[in-house]
């Protein structure tokens, strides 16, 4: 399976080819399901002028937040960017562009990008600031806006297990944006908790077929919890 063996040994190999000014689609919701080691590698590489497409931008010292600290990010396309003081500072100082996108529209833009659909209509955002400059069209008596899809030079995602061909399964709500992000990168790099032999993942349980995946690296994850909330005894 030489041609299908996508496992790489180092983070350098995993992110090789990423250069200044590229667009990176990142999986994860808050700090849940983020490719921690790949983000750290981008910090190490000092790549700059990056556009990130990601639902959130981490916190000050974890997740994509660490790339903000290093001023590597030029633009964020996100649905929610709170919980991050450096973000706020850069944004207010005009150092960071932000394109706020409704969460469902963002997920669909990634999916559409991966699926060869350049644009779709949605009612989400009609009549709001999100609709500014976008085409409006009526279907069955309701108004919809045209949203264009998103692709990137790279996608960085996290999965639970990968077989060596890049077939993936996710773990619980760490799935979130990862399957769509996986489809939307020209080069898709996945960081996983476990690499298994081909055949261990059954055809019907695979959530992202290997065709979308270019490189696999085994990571080790801190899995920081943003809001630990416990049952009252």
């Amino acid at each position: 399976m030489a041609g299908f063996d996508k496992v790489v040994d180092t983070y350098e190999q995993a992110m090789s080819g990423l250069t200044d000014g590229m667009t990176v689609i990142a999986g994860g919701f808050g700090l849940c399901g983020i490719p921690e080691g790949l983000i750290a590698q981008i910090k190490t590489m000092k790549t700059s002028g990056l556009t990130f497409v990601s639902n959130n931008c981490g916190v000050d010292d974890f997740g994509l937040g660490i790339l903000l600290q290093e001023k590597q990010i030029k633009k964020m396309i996100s649905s929610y960017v709170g919980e991050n003081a450096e973000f706020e500072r850069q944004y207010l100082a005009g150092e960071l562009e932000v394109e706020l996108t409704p969460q469902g529209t963002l997920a669909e833009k990634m999916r559409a990008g991966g699926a060869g659909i350049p644009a779709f209509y949605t009612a989400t955002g009609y009549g709001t600031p999100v609709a500014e400059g976008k085409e409006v069209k009526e279907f069955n008596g309701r108004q919809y806006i045209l949203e264009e899809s998103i692709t990137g030079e790279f996608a960085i995602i996290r999965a639970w297990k990968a077989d060596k061909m890049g077939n993936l399964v996710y773990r619980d709500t760490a799935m979130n944006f990862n399957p769509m992000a996986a489809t939307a990168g020209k080069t898709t790099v996945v960081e996983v908790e476990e690499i298994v032999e081909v055949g261990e993942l059954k055809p019907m349980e695979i959530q992202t077929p290997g065709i979308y995946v270019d490189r696999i690296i085994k990571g080790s994850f801190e899995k920081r919890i943003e809001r630990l909330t416990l049952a009252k005894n």
Partner: protein
Amino acid sequence: MSLSRDQIAKRVAQELQDGFYVNLGIGIPTLVANYVPTDMEVMLQSENGLLGMGPYPTEDNVDADMINAGKETVTAVTGASIFSSAESFAMIRGGHVDLTVLGAFEVDQNGNIASYMIPGKLVKGMGGAMDLVAGAQNIVVTMTHADKRGNSKLLASCSLPLTGVDCINKVVTDLAVMKIENGAFHLLERAPGVSVEEIIEKTAGKLIVPEFVPEMSFE
């Protein structure tokens, strides 16, 4: 007496029906889960990809990979399913959720809602709110009737940037339950001990008041 946050949640819980799939926003809406009638079952949808959200975990079963849309650690109930964000919003945008409850800064008599952005303050983003208000057939907004300075939040026309247009059907505040129809708020119920006059006074938008306005019942 105006309602407490918990009482608002309790009143909203009366909108639930057995077998409903429900999305509860952050804040007061989250509290609604505590008041689901015991003879009733509902499934809670969390837009990060969980249908069948359960209670918060005990210390023993906390899992960083199990969170809700508010990024809190949660559990899943028996019968839950977990899926991608695209699938989650397909569900929401496609109108498959039976009831959505969320907060707002302002609602107006045309069913418009402003809930995510106050110009001049930092914009944190709309998260899933725009998708939720555009997708749901049945939305209840919970909020205080007026702000801290006494300014009405039920307006003729929202003053803040909108989250969605012509989408809100019902509002439950600390003072009243209202439906929105034909360009007006319609007063349905008042909080126990709250006068119709106070509600009229604190409602800036067009308000239709029927002859008899029952008090909310919490038995």
